[in-house]
């Protein structure tokens, strides 16, 4: 017996042989990659007859602190693909650089516009990156929406998340938006068949209304946002939009918390 704390309550060496100290390590597996730090909230997108509309606000939060207010979370890949990032911002920056290097490699030889990577290719690539990283126990803490046109220049919209799960639907939303915006989007575009009857103006209006609802109810959101419309004509990306016609009158009617007495 000795006085060292690690020997307390353990079998005696002279009776049972030396105790394996490998069980006394203070270090565990790497965990710092397994939770997000600076985060972006929802990304929402909807298909319409000629393309896709996608939007995300310009806020990056540090926990509940609104830390960065000019963060562009939509990234144009080329003339027919845009990626929207929810989740960890540094992982988004890594993916941004990964996509830059992919773009450089793909364009060493000049190709016709039709031979360029399209949104479907890009989604396949990104989902494989996400799945590889989660299988390494080192996930990229993002939920991505890939919006644009596929190989036949038809509207394409799909998501990939930090587990490598993929999903496709005529309307998609990540994060809080999956709960708050998705039902609103589905009211106008319930299924793939309806997409053909939705105009660009309708889709943009729908996305703007949804962004407004998200700002009303998501405490990690902001009224400045980016919106992109992807059609055969290319990508129309606006990165400094402001939510218009806000009305907080509904707040008066909310009861059950806050400072009101009854």
């Amino acid at each position: 017996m000795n006085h060292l704390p690690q020997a307390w309550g353990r079998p005696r060496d002279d009776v049972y042989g030396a105790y394996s100290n490998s069980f006394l390590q203070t270090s565990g597996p790497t965990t710092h990659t397994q939770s997000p730090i600076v985060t972006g909230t929802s990304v929402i997108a909807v298909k319409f007859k000629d393309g896709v509309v996608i939007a995300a606000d310009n806020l990056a939060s540090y926990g509940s602190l609104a830390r960065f207010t000019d963060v562009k979370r939509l990234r144009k890949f080329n003339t027919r693909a845009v990626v929207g990032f929810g989740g960890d911002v540094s992982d988004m920056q890594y993916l941004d650089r990964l996509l830059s290097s992919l773009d450089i490699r793909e364009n060493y030889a000049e190709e016709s516009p039709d031979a360029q990577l399209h949104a479907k290719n890009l989604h396949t690539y990104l989902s494989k990156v996400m799945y590889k990283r989660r299988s390494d126990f080192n996930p990229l803490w993002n939920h991505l929406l890939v919006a644009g046109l596929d190989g036949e220049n038809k509207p394409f919209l799909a998501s990939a998340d930090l587990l490598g799960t993929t999903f496709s639907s005529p309307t998609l939303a990540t994060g809080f938006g999956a709960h708050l915006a998705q039902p609103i989007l589905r009211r106008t575009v319930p299924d793939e068949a309806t997409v053909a009857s939705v105009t660009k103006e309708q889709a943009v209006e729908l996305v703007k209304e949804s962004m407004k609802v998200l700002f009303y109810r998501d405490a990690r959101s902001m009224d400045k946002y980016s919106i992109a419309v992807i059609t055969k004509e290319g990508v129309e990306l606006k990165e400094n939009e402001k939510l218009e016609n806000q009305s907080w009158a509904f707040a008066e009617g909310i009861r059950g918390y806050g400072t009101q007495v009854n």
Partner: protein
Amino acid sequence: MTSIGTGYDLSNSVFSPDGRNFQVEYAVKAVENGGTAIGIRCKDGVVLALEKIISSKLLKAGANKRISTVDRNIGVVSSGLLPDGRHFASRARDEAAQWRRTYKAPIPTSALANHMGSYVQMYTLYSSVRPFGITAIVGGWDPEIELPVDGQVGSGPATGSGGKKEGAKHGGPFLYMIEPSGLYWGYYGAATGKGRQSAKSELEKLDLAAGNLTLEEGVKEAARIIYAAHEDSKDKDFELEMTWVSSLDGPTKGRHQEVPKELLEEAERLAKKALEGDDDDDDEKMED
């Protein structure tokens, strides 16, 4: 080549008593037989042009490009052994990508030329390798504005400290030529390959140091010079391959690209006309 047979030319990295490395000199000989390649540094961009000798009638016209894009804003053309040129371009791409991984920004043309110069020079040092049988011309446009760092998503604080110097000048057109010894210089106009002598004398006439030549004029001059240089190996067919890189507000938006078909054809037409004009002059002289 009086020292041939003295034994000092058998191994790379061995000097002869009078201080020469024969393997490197032989590599230069390989370059001197290659199709002519030139680069012109204009005031608003760089042009690279190549006389691509057609070695077989069975090759598809316009295929098998020989001028390579290294990063978005940099191109490389080489003269000499084709596979060596391919490897050079491949290595240059790796260097550019590695620079981006380290610094999150595109590699400056000068830095690429420096790295590639060092790389080529290493192949003169060991007996287990041979020197590059190429002379490469590297042309690029370094962005004149301060680019955001790769992956940057915001612009940072609008007020407060910054420390950026107002009115500092960045970037511009750059042109370098790297030889088999690893030697490289920056040039206003560079030429290598079989027709380099006549190409160089034509380039000298352009007074490129004055910085008056525009990119579009440069394209036309480049085509003319390649056509003129081809007079040295007239019995062979050739294709003119030409790329350019302009400023961010120029025709290529700071990217290294092939010269558009219309402009290329126009430049070739003018080049042929200039050649015929020369012939006419000769004829007239003969008549006199």
